[in-house]
C-alpha cells in the first residue's frame, strides 16, 4: 500500500504503449510510476492482438498512423533484440483474389512508397506460388512488403515493463485510477492502492483512455470499442510463410492468415463495433466469417486444427487516427490514445514521441548513466540444441523437469517467469507458453498452479487465471460436503 508518493511522471495503463513509454522514460533520471488496473501488464488490447508488425502501406500518407507505423517498424529489430522478444521479419503479402484486384495492389504500393516503406514490390504467379505454395489458385498477384513481421505482443509488453522496472520505474498493478486531482504544479492520481503526486501524466489507458480524460474534464476524444476474434491452430499446421492479407475493404484490413512468431498459424481478426469495452467473447458468427474469408486465401486450412480462440477489443478513437498529443486541458498531460492498428507497430515510435512531448512541456530529460536497455536473456529451452539443453540441466536441474509437454516448457523457465513478474496462470502462459499448446493446459495447469502457489507463497485456492475473481479452484476437498445440497443452492 502506497500512501502518497511524489513522482515526476505517472503513466496510466500498462499495455504495449504504456510499458514501452515507461521503458523509454527509464533512460532518464526521473521518478516514473506506471499504474495498471489489471494484475499484470499487457492484458488489454495488447494481449489479444494479431501481433503484426506492419510495413506501413495500409495507412493514408500524412496520417499519424502512417508516420508512426513506418518509424516503429524500423525500430523493431533492435528493440526485440534488446528486450529478447520473439520477432520474425517474415514479410507481408497482400494478395489479389482476382485479376480485378491487381490495380488495387498498385495503389497500395504507391501509397506505401509515399509513406517511406522500403522494398515494396508486386509478385506474380510463379514467384507467388514459390513463396506461398498453399495459396488458393485464384490468387494471381500480391504486394510483398519484406519489412513486415510478427511479434508476440504480450511478451513485448511484459519485457518492456521488466526492463523499465530494472531501470527504476515503479509498477503499481491492480490499481485502477479512480480520480485525478489538479494541484498547483501537477496532479494527484488516486488509486485504491495509494495516491501518486505527479508533475506529468501519460494517458496510455487504451480502451479506457477517454474515461481517464474525463477525470480531468477533457472531452477532446472518444473511444469506440471494436472487437476482433482470432483463432489459433496447432503448431503442426504450417501453411504459410508470410503474413497473408487480402485486399482491404472500406472499414478494415481484412482477415489475415498469420504465421505467429511462436510458430502457430492464427486467423482473424473480425472488426465489430461492440457496446461493452469488456466484450471479449468469441462467437459462432465471428468464426464463420473468419473461416469463410480465410478459405478463399488458403483452402487447405481445416477447422479441425484449431486449438483455441480469443477476442480482444481495439481502442478506436473518433478521430479515425491516433491521438498523440497534449491534452487541451494541460500540457502536463500527454495522450497516447486511440491506438488501434497499426498501434503495436507504432508503439516504439510513439514511446519516443512521448518523451519528446514531455521534454517540450518542461520535463528535464537527463540521461541516466546506469540505464541498461538489454533485458536479461530468457532461456527458451525447446529452441536449444541437445548439447545446450544438457548443459542447462547440469547447471540447474529444474531444466530437467518438463512441466508443459506440448510446448516443452521446463520448471526452471516457469520459476524464472514468476521471478520476472508473472503472478497468474495466464501471466505464466503468455511469458513462457506453458498451457498455450494443443492440450491447452489440460495436463500442466495443475502443475503450473502448484509452482505459482509455492513461489508466491499463496494457497492454491488463491491462484488465479488473470487476477482476483478468476480463481481456478475454489474449495478444499471435503469443504462442501454436508454444507449444501442442490435444492438449497437453487432456492
Amino acid at each position, binding site marked *: 500500500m502506497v500512501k502518497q508518493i511524489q513522482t515526476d511522471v505517472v503513466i496510466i495503463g500498462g499495455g504495449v504503449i504504456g510499458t514501452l513509454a515507461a521503458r523509454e522514460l527509464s533512460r532518464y533520471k526521473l521518478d516514473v510510476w506506471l499504474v495498471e488496473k489489471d494484475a499484470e501488464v499487457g492484458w488489454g488490447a495488447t494481449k489479444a492482438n494479431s501481433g503484426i508488425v506492419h510495413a506501413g502501406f495500409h495507412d493514408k500518407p500524412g496520417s499519424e498512423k502512417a508516420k508512426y507505423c513506418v518509424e516503429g517498424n524500423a525500430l523493431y529489430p533492435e528493440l526485440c533484440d534488446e528486450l529478447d522478444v520473439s520477432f520474425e521479419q517474415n514479410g507481408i503479402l497482400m494478395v489479389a483474389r482476382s485479376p480485378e484486384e491487381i490495380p488495387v495492389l498498385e495503389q497500395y504500393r504507391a501509397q506505401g512508397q509515399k509513406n517511406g516503406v522500403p522494398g515494396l514490390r508486386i509478385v506474380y504467379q510463379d514467384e507467388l506460388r514459390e513463396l506461398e505454395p498453399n495459396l488458393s489458385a485464384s490468387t494471381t498477384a500480391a504486394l510483398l512488403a519484406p519489412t513486415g513481421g510478427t511479434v508476440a505482443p504480450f511478451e513485448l509488453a511484459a519485457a518492456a515493463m521488466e526492463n523499465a522496472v530494472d531501470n527504476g520505474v515503479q509498477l503499481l498493478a491492480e490499481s485502477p485510477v479512480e480520480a485525478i486531482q489538479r494541484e498547483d504544479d501537477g496532479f494527484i492520481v488516486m488509486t485504491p492502492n495509494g495516491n501518486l503526486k505527479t508533475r506529468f501524466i501519460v494517458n496510455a489507458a487504451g480502451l479506457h483512455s477517454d474515461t481517464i480524460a474525463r477525470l480531468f474534464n477533457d472531452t477532446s476524444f472518444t473511444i469506440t470499442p471494436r472487437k476482433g476474434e482470432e483463432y489459433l491452430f496447432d503448431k503442426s499446421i504450417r501453411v504459410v510463410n508470410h503474413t497473408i492479407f487480402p485486399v482491404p475493404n472500406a472499414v478494415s484490413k481484412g482477415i489475415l492468415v498469420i504465421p505467429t512468431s511462436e510458430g502457430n498459424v492464427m486467423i482473424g481478426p473480425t472488426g465489430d463495433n461492440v457496446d461493452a469495452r469488456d466484450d471479449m467473447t468469441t462467437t459462432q458468427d465471428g468464426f464463420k466469417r473468419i473461416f469463410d474469408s480465410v478459405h478463399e486465401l488458403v483452402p487447405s486450412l481445416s477447422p479441425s486444427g484449431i*486449438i483455441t*480462440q*480469443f477476442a480482444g477489443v481495439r481502442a478506436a478513437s473518433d478521430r479515425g487516427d491516433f491521438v498523440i498529443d497534449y491534452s487541451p486541458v494541460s500540457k502536463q498531460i500527454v495522450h497516447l490514445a486511440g491506438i488501434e492498428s497499426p498501434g503495436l507497430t507504432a508503439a516504439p515510435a510513439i514511446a519516443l514521441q512521448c518523451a519528446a512531448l514531455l521534454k517540450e512541456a518542461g520535463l528535464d530529460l537527463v540521461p541516466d548513466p546506469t540505464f541498461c536497455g538489454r533485458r536479461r536473456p530468457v532461456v527458451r529451452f525447446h529452441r536449444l540444441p541437445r548439447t545446450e539443453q544438457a548443459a542447462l540441466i547440469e547447471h540447474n536441474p529444474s531444466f530437467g*523437469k518438463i512441466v508443459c509437454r506440448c510446448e516443452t516448457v521446463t520448471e526452471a523457465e516457469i520459476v524464472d517467469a514468476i521471478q520476472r513478474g508473472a503472478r497468474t496462470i495466464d501471466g505464466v502462459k503468455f511469458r513462457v507458453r506453458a498451457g498455450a499448446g494443443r492440450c491447452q493446459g489440460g495436463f500442466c495447469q*495443475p502443475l503450473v498452479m502448484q509452482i505459482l502457489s509455492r513461489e508466491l507463497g499463496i494457497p492454491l485456492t488463491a491462484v488465479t487465471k488473470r487476477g482476483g*475473481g478468476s*480463481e481456478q*479452484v475454489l474449495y478444499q476437498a471435503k469443504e462442501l460436503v454436508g454444507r449444501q445440497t442442490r435444492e438449497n*443452492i437453487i432456492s
Partner: protein
Amino acid sequence: MKTLSADVLVIGGGPAGLSAALAAKQKGAKRVAILERNEELGGILQQCIHHGFGIHRFREELTGPEYAQRFIDELASSGIDVYLETMVLELTDKRVVYAINKDHGMLCFEAGAVVLAMGCRERTRGALRIPGHRPAGVMTAGAAQRFVNIEGYVPGQRVVILGSGDIGLIMARRFTLEGAAVEAVVEVLPYAAGLTRNVVQCLHDFDIPLHLSATVVEIHGRDRVEAVTIADVDAAWKPVPRTERTIPCDTLLLSVGLIPENELSVQAGIELDPITNGPLIDHTLMTSLPGVFACGNVLHVHDLVDFVSEEAETAGTNAAAWTDAQATQSRRIITVKAGESVRYVLPQYVSPEKTAKLYMRVTQPETNVTINIGGLFSLKQKSVRPSEMIQVKLTPKVLSRLDSDSLTVAVEREVENVG
C-alpha cells in the same frame, strides 16, 4: 550426454507401458526400460480412485491405483529399469530416444525395439470452439479429476458437464460426493457416450439430469464461469434456434473425447490413421517404423483398462522378439478395412500366416446386428455401442479362406421377423 542402450524401450509407464515392459521381460528381452514423465508409475489410473477396474483380468473390482499397483509390484522384482519424471523429447527413425530428467540430465537411448505407450489427452474447449467468454472454471474432466483426487481441491460447487464420456460421468458422481451440485450433463449425441454402467451408477443413482442431443452454445462470466447456455441440436449437431436455456454454474467440465498423443510418433515419421489418430499397425502391433510398436490409448482410445493390459502384452511380446532382420522380410499382407457402420478396425494390416486379434468400434448403437468379418464368418451381437470395443480373433486357418488382399468388416442388420 549419457548414452544408454535397451533391447526394449517403453515410452510411458501407464497401464500400457507397464504391461508391455513386463511382457517383454518375460519373453526374454534382457534390458527393458520404462521412461515415465510423472513422479510415479501407473499413469492416469492413479487419479481414477473409483472402482470398476480389473473385472475381466482379475475377476474382481479394483480401484485405478489398486489395478496399477498389481503391475508395479510385479515390476519391482523384474529387473526392468524405470526412469521417473523423465520426459522424452525426441524419437528418431533410427530408434534413438532423447529424454531428460533432473537427476541424469540428457539421456540418449539406443533401442532395439521401442514400445509407444504415451496414452492420450483430452479434447479441449478450443477444439470445440464453444463461444462466449474465457473465464476460470472451464476445464477438462480429467484435469478436474486430478484437482479433486490428487491435489485435494474442488474446482467449484455448481457444475455443468459437457459430454457424457466416461471421465465426465465419473466426475459427475465425484463432484456430487464432494458436496457440489451437478446441474446437468449435456451430450450432443442422442445417446450417452460412456459405458452403460457409468450412466447408471454415476448419473441415474444420483438423479443427475442428462440432456441428450444438446450442447453448450455460450459460456458466461468474464473472470469466473457464471452460467452456460445450452441448446438442443439437430441431426447435424447444429444448435436449434429458440431451444436455448441458461444454467447458472461456476464450473464447466468438458468430457468430449480423447486424442492419442502421437507427437513423438509423427516426429519419427510414423504414419497415423486419420480415424483413430493412432499409428497404423500390423498384427504384431508394429507401426510403419520397423521395430516401433504401439499399444494402449496412444494406439486407439480404449474403454476398459483390462484390454489395454492385454493389448500391451502383445506389443511387449512382439517387441522382445523383434530383430532388425525382420525389417527386410517381405510377406503377404492383408489390409483390414472398416465397412458399413464400423468406425474403425485395428490392426490395419494382418498376415495370412499369423493369428491376429481385431479391435473395432461401431459408429452408432444398434441391437440385433451381425458383424461380417470379410465374408469369412459372422458375429451375432444383441447390442453394439460405440463406447464398447468389440474384439475378434482371426486365425491363419480362417484367413486361408480369404482370396483377396483386403478384408472388410461391416455391420449387417437382421431383417426383423415380425410375428
